[in-house]
């Protein structure tokens, strides 16, 4: 034990003594964690955005056109199936939602994409969320819309009472949301009738239904029942649909791959920097290591000594880096930039970096294994 304590204490002393290289290695670790952390935070933000509507609505079941990934896709469903759904035992409510892509006439005549979302007056828990001005009730006036205020710079005035043009139709702003940003273009909330008018959808067509049950634990059972009754649609539990959207963002849309590759590149850069710094440090002190070997330190002792230095660098660098990346979401907070980094991800990233730092010491360990103790006499 005394031997390991001594090697640990010697590792610390060597790192302090070679402070410039230690600072260089710590900077490399910090850089790697920041780069990887930023990418993972962006990935977290993208995932959050993609699932925002689903997470906020949080129904027990989704009734969707076949194969839908993002809301508003697929052939519309007839509203006539709603009474059939409501007739099923355990079904508490069935809310139709009309969703589609359109454009708002912005400043200087420039058109900006919007996602029109039509919801019924008494739809339970179906937005608009993050309402910062106006009243939800007003949404059910003809041609009323609630828009996202953070896009004001691009779409022009969003003041309550202002008139905007969406899909070639004049609408009146009756409220605004803030920070309701999803994978889709900004939301423009309205009633189903106005939504159909803007989107050119036939009367009584809807994009999907959200279903709430009296007993949410019965979701799987009711899902099977509804699926048998309506084979032409897709009935998904909330968990299944969230997983599908998650997979779409991370895999199908390629965002996950791009961000993950960037994160891995960041960590690899960290590995190379730490490895080079440690190798240079060992080379600069090679006669000291030779002396240790001649005196009687074994290859194992020197390996522990160098790996402990990697471990210490990893722990200190990850601690600093972890603290910094925890602030990333706050530092980069803007309504149209969502960075999310939960504590679990921070901890995992830091642990990974510590492992990388230990791996980074392997080149130095190999160098020392080949070191002949007789070199000290030359």
């Amino acid at each position: 034990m005394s031997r390991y304590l001594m090697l640990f204490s010697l590792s610390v002393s060597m790192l302090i003594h070679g402070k410039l290289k230690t600072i260089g290695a710590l900077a490399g670790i910090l850089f790697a964690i920041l780069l990887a952390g930023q990418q993972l935070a962006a990935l977290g933000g993208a995932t959050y955005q993609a699932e925002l509507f689903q997470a906020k609505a949080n129904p027990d079941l989704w009734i969707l056109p076949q194969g839908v990934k993002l809301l508003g896709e697929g052939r519309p469903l007839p509203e006539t199936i709603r009474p059939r759904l409501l007739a099923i035992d355990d079904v508490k409510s069935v809310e139709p939602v009309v969703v589609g892509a359109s454009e708002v006439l912005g400043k200087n005549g420039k058109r900006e994409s919007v996602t029109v979302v039509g919801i019924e007056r008494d739809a339970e828990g179906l937005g608009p969320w993050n309402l910062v001005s106006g009243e939800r009730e007003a949404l059910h006036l003809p041609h009323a819309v609630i828009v996202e205020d953070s896009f004001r710079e691009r779409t022009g005035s969003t003041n309550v009472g202002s008139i905007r043009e969406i899909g070639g139709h004049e609408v009146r702003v009756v409220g605004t949301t803030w920070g309701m940003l999803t994978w889709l273009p900004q939301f423009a909330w309205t009633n189903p009738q106005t939504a159909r008018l803007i989107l050119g959808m036939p009367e009584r067509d809807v994009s999907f239904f959200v279903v709430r049950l009296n007993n949410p634990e019965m979701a799987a059972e009711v899902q099977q029942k509804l699926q048998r009754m309506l084979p032409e649609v897709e009935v998904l539990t909330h968990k299944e649909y969230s997983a599908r959207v998650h997979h779409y963002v991370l895999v199908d849309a390629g965002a996950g791959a791009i961000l993950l590759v960037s994160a891995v590149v960041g960590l690899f850069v960290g590995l190379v920097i730490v490895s080079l710094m440690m190798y240079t440090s060992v080379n600069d002190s090679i006669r000291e290591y030779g002396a240790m070997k001649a005196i009687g330190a074994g290859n194992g002792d020197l390996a522990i000594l160098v790996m402990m230095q990697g471990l210490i660098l990893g722990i200190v660098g990850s601690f600093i880096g972890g603290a910094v990346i925890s602030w990333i979401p706050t530092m980069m907070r803007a309504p149209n930039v969502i960075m999310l980094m939960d504590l679990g991800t921070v901890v995992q990233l830091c642990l990974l970096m510590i492992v990388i730092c230990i791996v980074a010491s392997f080149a130095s360990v190999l160098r020392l294994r080949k070191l002949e103790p007789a070199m000290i006499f030359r």
Partner: protein
Amino acid sequence: MGVTKSFGSGAIIAHVLRGIDLTVERGEFVYLSGPSGSGKTTLLSIIGCVLRPTTGEIWLGDTELGKIKESQLARFRLEQIGFIFQGHNLLGAINAEENVAFPLRLRGWSTGKALATAREMLHKVGLGERLKHLPEQLSGGQRQRVAVARALAGSPPFVFADEPTASLDAQSGLKVTEILRTLAKEQGCTVLMVSHDSRVFHLADRILHIEDGLIIPQTEHAA
């Protein structure tokens, strides 16, 4: 007995040691001198178990070095041999006390015992006031005295020194050698010291001369 060492092969082979027969008595303080390239450092490396001979048998006490496995050599050096190098080769990141305690703690001594022994040794070499100094804060002579303390701290039966006074002025060189001799005699330790510093020859029990890889006995001192 009959120790040879060659480097290289074929046409560019160099026979550095060409049949060394040497016996050093227990507790003896022996100098090994000779011109550059005569093979004295190679011989010291072989006796110090950091280099294997090409042929020949070497006994340190009751142990024949050729029978020690490669993996056990480090442990053997740690427990049986104290080294003093030409450059002091102290660990620059730790202070004098920790440098002296280093081999003891590698042996598994407790921190307290190792540091107490290190302090005692540093007092003996006249560095009781420099325990917490880093090597870079010490003079060349002081560093070499720390190296002497490190070599002798674990009371090894053998100490091998490679020109420890080479980079020191006459006074420091003499002082370091006197300290080494005094402490080694106190501990009954056998010392083989490579040196061609004639200023300290009078401290040796015996001086061996090596030339072209062969030992030529020269002088004996009644110290």
